[in-house]
């Protein structure tokens, strides 16, 4: 089955190397003879973790970050084998962020929009 991998194409992610990471993942997959589909999305807004790479799994999308092009091989191996990796972040939707600083009534707003942006492929 084709593995779906998500990489942001947001300007902020591209500025820290998202394009190079997407390219490197493609090369790493070709080298292993693995079929992957790279979907370029918006950013979830977790810029300190960009370039953040996600892979679709039965548990949900599992994220790694910040990934550089030099990490592409090891990250892809971790995705394929479901093995631990230093850049592993867990299920993307469950990454807590900025909650401590946010008033509780704003949390749903602040979480939903970036999650949508990160979830949808962009043309």
């Amino acid at each position: 089955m084709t593995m779906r991998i998500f990489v942001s194409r947001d300007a902020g992610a591209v500025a820290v190397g998202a394009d190079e990471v997407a390219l490197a993942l493609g090369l790493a997959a070709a080298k292993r003879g693995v079929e992957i589909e790279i979907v370029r999305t918006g950013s979830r807004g977790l810029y300190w973790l960009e370039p953040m790479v996600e892979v679709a799994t039965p548990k949900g999308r599992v994220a790694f970050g910040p990934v550089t092009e030099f990490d592409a091989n090891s990250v892809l191996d971790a995705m394929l084998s479901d093995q631990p990796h230093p850049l592993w972040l867990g299920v993307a939707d469950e990454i807590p962020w900025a909650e401590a600083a946010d008033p509780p009534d704003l949390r749903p707003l602040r979480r939903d929009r970036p999650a949508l942006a990160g979830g949808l492929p962009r043309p």
Partner: protein
Amino acid sequence: MMSVGEPWNPARGAEIIAEHSHLEGPTLVILHALQEAFGYVPEAAIPMVASALNLSRAEIHGVFTFYHDFRRAPAGRHVLKLCRAEACQAAGGDTLAARAEAKLGIALGDTTADDLVTLEPIYCLGLCATAPSAMLDGRLIGRLDEARIDALVAEAQR
């Protein structure tokens, strides 16, 4: 994106102005088109735009000088913009700007003698979360450090 344009030619300028003067709100469109063609907005074009649009020279001059992306002189072949706004300053941008100035032998706002590189300050690229940031010929770069700024300067000098 290279910023080298054709040499200023009043007839060509008039042609560009005429091409856009029928539009609604044509001033910015014309200034952009002039800069696109010549690499800058020649001083001589300002009264021509004013006359074509039946506006005063002061009005066109006002619009032209308000937007710092409009140039009064041609830029170098490559334009390196360093963000000098607050977040980038707080993240070490001062040191990196000084480093770029020293490497190129020019100050922010200047162009190297060989017309290869224009170094400019810019006030916020919206990449505060990955500050300090820069833009080389329209390409955004975040998380600058000494190695990255050196690489950008070297790329601009090629």
